[in-house]
């Protein structure tokens, strides 16, 4: 068996921790992090998937970098598979970007990332927790204005901002918020809810994984349409729908509390026991247990010092766990087992177990 120690660029750059913006945020009962993305393209230049080489985009980047102070340039070509995975788990880049993207500009607190040559030439992304969605949009909007002063955007009077995929044309705006919806999931209310939302041009989807119950009961609400509405309308509608879903989740939680308290308590404390005492933890199980603990703390059924659902959910992701293994320089026969062991160890440690 070989010992492993990689020279991990992403770790050297300091992307091996929870992002500062998330570190500093307060956790809410249902609402998790939110994201706003603007898709922008340079006029008269083939879209990234049609580009032959990167020569055509190089002069654009030179101009952009004049305005981008305080951003770190992270090039995809030099990164290992797992470095990329870590950036994906932190939502700093998209999975598509890890395959074909050129480079990304990431702000110091990691709340802004500008991807170059994802599906579009530029994708400006802002992230935050507990902020009004409009604040996130304003931030992206200001960056957009800044970049536009250096670059000629592809814009059409009729269709708005032109994008590679017609699903983004118009505003190029995709706003999304992650929601923790355990009660709506237990009550089988997600399907009808999501069918209703799609009539208004919004979608509610499980994040991570295609299974019927998404990892940790976390869903993402986002706008589907980008044309025919102003940015403000899209953001306000999304905010309003989010509030309605949060209300419904809270109602379902009251119902759970009054009708199924014993069941809820049982699953909360079972999960607590598992996280505190298990020696192997697959991702799915850990996420489910953390979701139970979050519901338990929200309903005041259990008190946990220092428990932070959103941050812990990120810490149990494969690339984060793998990184801890790297640091240990251990010898192992199966990395799969090592990851599950390390995840369990992390949970025990965080919950003050053995």
């Amino acid at each position, binding site marked *: 068996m070989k010992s492993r120690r990689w020279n991990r660029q992403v770790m050297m750059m300091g992307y091996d921790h929870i992002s500062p913006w998330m570190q500093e945020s307060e956790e809410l009962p249902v609402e998790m992090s939110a994201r706003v993305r603007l898709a922008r393209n340079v006029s008269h*230049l083939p879209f990234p998937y*049609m580009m032959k080489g990167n020569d055509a985009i190089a002069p654009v980047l030179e101009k952009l970098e004049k305005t981008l102070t305080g951003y770190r340039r992270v090039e995809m070509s030099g990164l290992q*598979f797992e470095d990329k995975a870590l950036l994906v788990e932190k939502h700093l880049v998209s999975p598509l970007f890890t395959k074909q993207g050129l480079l990304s500009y990431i702000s110091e607190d990691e709340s802004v990332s500008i991807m170059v040559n994802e599906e579009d030439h530029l994708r400006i992304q802002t992230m935050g927790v507990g902020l009004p969605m409009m604040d996130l949009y304003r931030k992206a909007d200001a960056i957009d204005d800044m970049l536009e002063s250096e670059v000629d955007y592809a814009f*059409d009077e009729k269709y*708005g901002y032109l994008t*590679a995929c*017609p*699903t983004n044309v118009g505003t190029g705006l995709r706003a999304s918020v992650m929601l923790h919806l355990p009660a709506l999931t237990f009550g089988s209310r997600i399907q009808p809810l999501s069918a209703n939302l799609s009539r208004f041009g919004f979608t509610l989807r499980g994040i991570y994984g295609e299974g019927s119950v998404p990892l940790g009961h976390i869903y993402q609400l986002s706008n589907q349409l980008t044309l*025919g509405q102003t940015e403000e309308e899209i953001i306000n509608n999304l905010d309003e729908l989010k509030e309605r879903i949060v209300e419904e989740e809270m109602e379902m939680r009251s119902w759970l509390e009054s009708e199924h308290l014993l069941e809820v308590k049982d699953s909360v404390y079972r999960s607590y026991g598992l996280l505190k005492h298990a020696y192997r933890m697959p991702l799915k199980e850990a996420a489910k247990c953390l979701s139970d603990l979050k519901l338990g703390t929200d309903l005041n059924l259990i008190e946990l010092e220092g428990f932070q659902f959103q941050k812990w959910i990120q810490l149990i992701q494969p690339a984060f766990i793998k990184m801890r293994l790297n640091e240990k320089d251990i010898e192992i026969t199966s990395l799969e087992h*090592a990851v599950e062991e390390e995840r369990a160890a992390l949970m025990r440690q965080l919950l003050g177990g053995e």
Partner: protein
Amino acid sequence: MSFSTQRSDEMKCESCNEREATIHISKGNGFEKTEKFLCEQCANASFENDFSYPDDSFNIQKLLKSLSEHPSLQQTKRRPKQCATCGSTINTIVQMGKFGCPDCYTTFGSQAADIISRVQAHQSEHVGKVPVKARAQLKTKKQLEQLKGELAKLVEAQEFEEAAVVRDEIKALEQAGDDDGI
């Protein structure tokens, strides 16, 4: 799902059977576990499926393929129209589910309009933000349209004196536009 970088010296990628397997992927847990040893390329492909990043919220390719039976998207001439900037044809666009470049939107006029309207739930007009640079241009254009309409009315009403004033305004606006390089 989890993955690891395995330094197996003799193993070939289970997916393509060509390159060396460098990454070990396993899904599921307990009794239902699938394990695979893949090369980086094949692992990247499976990686993408596992982190479904809900951005483009529905399968555009599928939608556009169903559109390819639509009469306006079908090839009628022998030589298909090509975008001068990027070389795309309506076929490649439908196949990829993407336009090749910004100019495709104008090159494929009514066909592009058709695709957009279907993908965007019958919406066809942008009403949101306009880039700062385009704002002045659009404002001038709207003003010109308005003045030209006025001019036509005045001419029709045979109010030539006023028409001359409007005509001069139009000229001035058009020239100012040229000076700005618009």
